[in-house]
């Protein structure tokens, strides 16, 4: 009997010692992009908390910074393009999975040049500045494709997204591929003009929220809650644009009007809208492959194919949540 008593005592101590801490927040690295600000809107409006999930948005200056933070493990997920997704999978120990498409770029990504370059055809032989780790090469490639040119006909110069306007003004490059809101800043220079945009590539350039596959597997319900909060934020942005835009523009440190212009270049996607894209062989899958192919052509990705398993509809609800 004495042994039984001691066993009980040890069992109690073990249980007490193994009490799990409260679940930590899901940290999502976020970079400036009009559609991503819907997530900021959700945070500010505490939609995550109301959906029962603690989501912390960790702000970075660019998609690259967010991707590196993810690769370091500072954050559990990130907002990014498919290029960051593939690059992160190629480089790191972690495996991000796309759980949500925030939008389809519909002009928010633009190829901007100065005179005398007026069209993509004029880019031959020119220096084009791009964020090489993001979708810059894709946009340039598509633009060249449209002009019958190829990447080999231009010289890609790596620049940070926030440095596009100055690089173009200083002449270090003759054209830049820039996403919003930086593209709006560049276009604010009168000498600059867009020669190509994502509007000419309908449904081809998307932004996503990627979550670490381990986190997703472990906290699928939280991911689902995140998506639900997303849906509600999207609706909030649509239904209460003044309030929402003000919040989102503050975060972008632009005017509401500028922000609205930029947001117009994006087509926000609810979870229901994007579900077909998550189907096997769906649009998202194809976009990933295309992106991979182009990045490999631009020698931005090497090595093994990482396109498989990059997406998961586990977090997508089957029915849209309504308030």
């Amino acid at each position, binding site marked *: 009997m004495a042994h039984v008593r001691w066993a009980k005592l040890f069992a109690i*101590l073990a249980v007490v*010692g193994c009490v799990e*801490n409260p679940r*930590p927040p899901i*940290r999502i*690295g976020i970079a*400036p992009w009009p559609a991503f600000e819907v997530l900021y809107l959700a945070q500010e409006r505490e939609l995550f908390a109301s959906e029962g999930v603690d989501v912390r948005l*960790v*702000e*970075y*200056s*660019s998609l690259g*910074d967010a991707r590196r*933070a993810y690769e*370091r493990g*500072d*954050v559990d997920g990130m907002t990014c393009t498919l290029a960051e997704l593939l690059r992160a999978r190629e480089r790191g120990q972690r495996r991000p999975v796309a759980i949500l498409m925030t939008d389809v770029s519909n002009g928010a990504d633009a190829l901007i040049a100065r005179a005398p370059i007026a069209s993509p055809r004029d880019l031959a032989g020119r220096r084009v500045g791009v964020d090489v780790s993001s979708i810059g090469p894709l946009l340039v490639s598509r633009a060249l494709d449209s002009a019958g040119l190829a990447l080999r006909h231009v010289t890609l110069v790596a620049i940070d997204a*926030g440095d596009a306007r100055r690089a173009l003004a200083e002449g270090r490059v003759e054209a830049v591929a820039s996403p919003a809101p930086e593209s709006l800043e560049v276009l604010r220079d009168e000498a600059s003009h867009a020669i190509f945009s994502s509007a000419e590539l309908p449904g081809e350039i998307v932004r996503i929220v990627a979550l670490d596959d381990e986190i997703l597997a472990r906290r699928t319900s939280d991911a689902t809650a995140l998506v639900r909060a997303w849906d509600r934020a999207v609706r909030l942005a649509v239904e209460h644009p003044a309030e929402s835009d003000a919040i989102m523009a*503050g*975060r*972008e*440190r632009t005017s509401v009007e500028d922000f609205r212009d930029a947001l117009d270049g994006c087509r926000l996607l609810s979870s229901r809208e994007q579900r077909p894209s998550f189907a096997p062989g769906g649009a998202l899958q194809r976009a990933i492959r295309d992106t991979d192919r182009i990045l490999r052509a631009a020698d931005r990705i090497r090595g093994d194919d990482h396109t498989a398993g990059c997406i998961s509809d586990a977090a997508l609800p089957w029915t849209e949540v309504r308030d």
Partner: protein
Amino acid sequence: LTKIASALRSLQAKVALPIALLGMAVAGTAVVFTQGLFADRLEEQVRLRAEGLCNTVNDCCEITGRGPALVRLVHFLAGDRDVERIVVTAGDPPQVVACNRNSWIGLRASEVPDRGVAEHVSESQRTRATGFHFHEARRSFDYYAPLRLDDDRTETAGLENGTVYVALETTAIRAQLSGSMTQSTCLIAAAALLFTLLAYALLRQFILAPVGDICRAMDRRAAGDATASAPVHAPDEIGALAGTFNRMLAALRRSEARFQRLAESNVIGVFSMEGDDAISEANQAFLEMLGRTRDELAGGRLEWSRLVPADRRAADEAALQRARRGERSAPWETTFFHASGKRVPVLVGVASVDADGRDVVGVVLDDTQRKEAELRLRESETRFRVLMDSGIVGIILTDATGRVTEANDAFLSMVGCTRADLATDRLNWRQLVSPGCRDVAAAAGDKIAVEGSIAPLELELMPAKRDPMPVLVCGARIGGKDRGSPSIVIVLDIAERKKMEVELQRATRAAEGANRAKSEFLASMSHEIRTPMNGVIGMTGLLLESNLDREQREYAETVRSCGEALLTILNDILDFSKIEAGRLAVETVEFDVRSAVEDVVDLLAPIAHGKGLDLFCFVDAEVPRAMAGDPGRLRQILTNLFGNAIKFTASGHVAVRTMVAEDRGDGLLLRFEVSDTGIGISPSALERLFHPFSQADMSTTRRFGGTGLGLAISKRLVELMGGEIGVRSIPGKGSTFWFTARLGRRACGPEPQLAAARERWRVLCVDPSEPAASFIREQAEAWNVETDLAETWEEALDRLWKAKEDGRPYRVLMVAKGLSGFDPGAFLESTGRKSEIGRIALVVLAPYADRATPGRDGDDLAWPAFAQLAKPVKPSHLRECFEALAEPARFRSRRPARTSDSGEPAAAEGALHGRILLAEDNPVNQRLALAQLAKLGYHADAVANGQEAVEALLRIPYDAVLMDCQMPEVDGFWATALMRQREGAAKRTPIIAMTANAMQGDRDRCLAAGMDDYLAKPVKLDELRSVLERWVKRPADAAPADVADPAAGSASEALDPVDVSVLEALSQLDDPGGPSLRDELIDIFLRDAPLKHAALREALAAGDRAALERVAHALKGASGNLGARPLAQLCARIEASARAGELARAAAEVALAEAELARVRIALEGSRESD
């Protein structure tokens, strides 16, 4: 709750709980300490982290200045999980220049939604110092520090008054620290727990468990397990405690066992009761007392209320209750029912064991015996009362002083008192006796008080107003050993008995007087008869030596033979009287049994020959030559049996056989058989044959005479020799008397084997008398000499020739003298002198008559070897004959077998040498010695004791006296002394001692007593001859110079015991016609002198020298007055010896005086009669 309380009171709880509390206290202290440490560490860690971030931001500002790069850097830094906020402000009022929230950049600090930022920035700007704040609720840490930048650099433009604000979330650090702290806490707690457990385990191992074992052993012991013991785990204090406890248990067990054994071995019943009415335990005695079993006991069926009768229950229950209450209760009597239904009276005592009176123990004593004893006592008392009142004996109860406390009527009647006298308490039985008995009565009373009882005692009561009454008194103390206890005294009137006793004493005295008179008469008669008979025989001998004609000689011979026969009868009577007195003894000397037997044969041969009877003698070869015993008594028995056989055999033969009946190493049991062909004895007469005064029948007595004492004497002698005697007889055919005697073995070599046996001689015995020839053959074959018999000479010749033809011729031819047809000369002629058969040795068996006259000499026959054996052929002669024939040279020179010794005077060796007096008490020895003396040519007279010898010597002047030293009445020493005294110096008769005590000391003693020479028994003829030749032939030389004469110095002047002249002088004093004074004096002397002599002996026996001297003096005077001078002189010597204290000498002189007194008496009586 009770169990918990009990558990908390246990030693285990008292030890374990403090240890547990101590462990918990240690653990709690560790936790508190760890918590404190945790808080300090947390703050330190967080502060260091915040400082680090601030320093980094400060450095970035230094490098990049304000702008996107700073914002980007802030984003990077704030990307860490623990960073909540980084805000860089600058300017005045402070404005956000970089923040991880894009939306705050560009806002004034005061516009920032987080109010803490504005406060901290404001504080920092104001103090220009670092600061921090812990938000325990938010688990956040705010830190702020002023930017410290170089002022003169362009990059830092716009960052003046800058402040870095960092908000950290402490959860992660807290979790990390908490993990470490938890680990530490757990380790400490585990260590405390381990310590607690270890301490508890040690306590349990070394203290609690052993103590628990001891407790369990105690519990088991308390539960009744007698084998319970505590294990000794270790040699420590607990082990010592366990050991001590075990020893205590062992002592307890022993004590219990002792009490158990005591209870079980006790005859007293022991029981115990626990609580209720039932007896729970009891010993065997209790169960047996009630006839109950242990099963009944175990089953609780022995309930007190059912064990006792209904009328006892209440009283018993009350007694038990008193005992349960602890009150002392005396044992009480009650009654139990035995299992058989019988009531057992018992005595019960109980006591409570414990204070609550639950347990009760008790003892039960079976009172049956006491009750029965009481009953018996009452009955005894009743009987005593009846006895008291019976009036047969007087019974009194007295106190220690003799005062009569109770008396029955018989006693009161005896002493002539009444009960009123008794009531006065002054009646003392010691005072009721006659004055002469009072001392005795007082002593008896004291003895009763001291010793408890007295033997019956005769006293004389002095009744009031009556004559004294003889009574027998006995008494005993009653009521314990205390001297003051009362006594019971029984008084028996023995007046009648005393009268009868007086009568009886008178009758007894008369009878004793008669008996004494008879004894005196017998002694006197034997003495008186023997004395004159000795004279008659002696004088007849002298008469026969004188010149008598034939008729006179026949008369004289008849007188002599009648006298000898009379003496024989007297000897028998004397022997028998000795047997009656138990004074008959046998001596032990070395002697030759064969010679003793042959002596008897020789002794009786003339008588047998006179009756025409043959005598045969056989001695087995196994009978040793030297043995130890009494040859005289052996001869006496043989002579008696042999004499009887001759007496009761008219024709035929008488034979004696001697053989070994049993050989026991140190001694032999010899068997002697005397057979005859006489008249035999009827079976009825056989039964009383060995009784005294008994013969086969009275007609026998009339026909053959005899006292009838011989066989009785022989029987007694045989018994003294350790043997038996018996007889088998066929009336008309003959009798065989046999007896055995145990004789000692003496060292002597085995008898050498005869040459005849060695050389395997053959002997032919030719005798018409078959028994005679058979005896010769039996004896020869006993020596392994082959012997054949032939009855006629013709038969002998046939055997002779046949033996020769067989190659085994005869070596010895024994022929009865006068055998018909036997002519030695013709035989020799016919066979030839030189022939082998002619060399046969011839032994002629001559008849008894030819003992002294061998007849024709063998030499005349020119027989090569010749010898003659006279009948009866004695074994020694036959053996000597065989030896002689084997040694012709010796045979020729000595011819020993030619004649036999003979008791016949006619065969005497020559002239008459003299008269010899033989003093010898044993009749056979007497007769043997007489025969030897006759053979040597002496005339001899025999007397049976010293006194007779002295008297015979007075009458007849013998030439010598052969004196046996050991004789009844007066022995040889005394007799010698008397003789020497009588003889005086003028004459000295040679006295030669004959004694069986062949010791040098005896010889010296004999010579010292006045004897002249010494012969050791048995007396050999040659020794006798040489001694007598030495003394009798030289009567003049009778007294050797070297032999002291003890009487020489005190020789009396006259031989007469009384000087006649003195008597005559007395006669002259008589008045004419008056009574004779002399006779009166003689009467007085004869009456008084024996009393005086008896007084002398008594004084001698008592060693009273004064009395001896006084009486001797008185006797000396009386003797002298009557002229008895020798007696007077003897008395004077006794007086002198007594005075000198020489009692040994006085004893001899008293004995001499007795003999002298006898002489004086004879002389005085003679002098009176002569008048």
